[in-house]
């Protein structure tokens, strides 16, 4: 089966010469939920920007469900890769929730009843249907983040890419978002340094450090490897003990 996402020897330097990625290689199979861990400045955001062609690779390739990211395929790539940004105020730019969720599919040329169906379906999946006619800035932060997820779900993406989904959420909103993400049947790549959240939601984790993939394996194993974590400026929260490999909690 074609993997949802294939990143191969991806390298990138910013126009000012700063090299951010030095040959990144990984694959995500269909339906997998994978955490991308890494300290600040590891190149996580730069990598994410490559996944839907906002940045174009200096070297190497990104392939989404068999389609390579290139100038000519951007439209289809952006439909297949749903990017959820960290600040929902950046993601929700339309005057009402309905228009915001409709923005993506409408750009794909969808209209009429099909558009309405997509908008309502996406909001239903994140449990936010009742806010459909409200302006985004009247919602709580947690609600806005869930609507932000709906805005990309409405495009029926192949893979959902979330940038720090748990940041700034209170514990209840954090759990509600986890419930939503678990209920979705799409491939998920979650960029985070919230290690317990990664463990809760993703079976597999990657560590991006210094512009390369430093580790790739079951999340439980990676989080139990204290040396590995320390080498890449990752730390478990105080009092948190990861389950031992082979002994699921």
């Amino acid at each position, binding site marked *: 089966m074609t993997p949802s996402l294939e990143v191969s020897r991806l390298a990138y330097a910013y126009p000012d010469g700063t090299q951010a990625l030095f040959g990144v290689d990984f694959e995500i199979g269909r339906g997998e939920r994978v955490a991308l861990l890494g300290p600040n400045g590891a190149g996580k955001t730069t990598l994410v920007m490559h996944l839907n062609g*906002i940045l174009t690779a200096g070297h190497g390739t990104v392939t989404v469900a068999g389609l390579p990211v290139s100038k000519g395929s951007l439209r289809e790539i952006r439909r297949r890769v749903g*990017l959820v940004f960290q600040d929902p105020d950046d993601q929700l730019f339309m*005057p009402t929730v*309905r228009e915001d969720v409709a923005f993506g599919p409408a750009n794909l040329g969808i209209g009429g009843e099909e558009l309405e169906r997509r908008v309502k379906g996406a909001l239903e999946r994140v449990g936010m249907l009742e806010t459909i006619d409200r302006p985004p800035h009247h919602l709580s932060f947690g609600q806005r983040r869930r609507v932000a997820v709906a805005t990309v779900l409405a495009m029926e993406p192949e893979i959902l890419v979330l940038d720090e989904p748990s940041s700034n959420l209170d514990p209840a909103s954090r759990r509600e978002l986890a419930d939503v993400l678990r209920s979705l049947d799409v491939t998920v790549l979650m960029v985070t340094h919230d290690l317990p959240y990664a463990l809760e939601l993703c079976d597999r984790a990657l560590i991006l450090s210094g512009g390369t993939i430093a580790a790739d394996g079951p999340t439980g194993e990676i989080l139990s490897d204290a040396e590995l974590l320390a080498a890449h400026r990752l730390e478990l929260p105080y009092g948190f003990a990861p389950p031992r490999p082979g002994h699921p909690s």
Partner: protein
Amino acid sequence: MGAGHHHQIYRAGDTLVHRLPPQCKLAAVAAFALVVVATPREWFWAFGLYALLLAAVAVAARVPALSVLRRMVIEIPFVVFAVALPFIGFGERVSLLGLSLSAEGLWSAWNILAKATLGVVASVLLASTTEPRLMLLGAQRLRLPPLLVQIAMFMLRYLDVIVDEMRRMRVARESRGFTARDVRHIPVVARSAGALFIRSYERGERVHLAMLSRGYSGSMPIIQDLSASARQWLVAGMLPGAALVALLGTWGLAL
């Protein structure tokens, strides 16, 4: 978050006036204003009829008089200007309550007050019955350049976000013992304004990325169909239509 609701002129409702497509209402108000402005200032009857027409619209839209009055504060600068005219005007003087006033100035003041008031009341009625975003979509249908409409849309969406950011910056300043008391403090406030500008600019870039990520290619997709039927245009046309009849009728009497 926070501020949100307070600065809204719009009053939710479900009347005939509320339901009219925004482009019809915009065009009707503009045409009405044209008729008002074209009326010679001596034709008192016509102005009275215009006021009655607006009152009828207010009743149909269930907008209370008090709410219209409160929203008319925007007219105050014009009122001040108009009141000054009889004192500073030239030409023939008339004496009123012991004051020597310019007759020409009095006419000008009346002219400005009457026409501005009618225009402002019509606009307040429009704003009270039309959501701001619909107003913009209506303007777009009336061929306002889409770029301007998009800019205004983003202003609507982000005004609260930016005001909130401004408030946080003020709290941060004051938490460190700063209060703006005199001119010497202007540089500090100016630097905050600069920082706010840069933050907003950066947010603009991030929003643009978010738009690109969802397939934006330079023009806003049409999400809400706002087409108006001939009947709706006819209903909206009643206000300027009746005003025009009043104008021509008064003209007929004057001949």
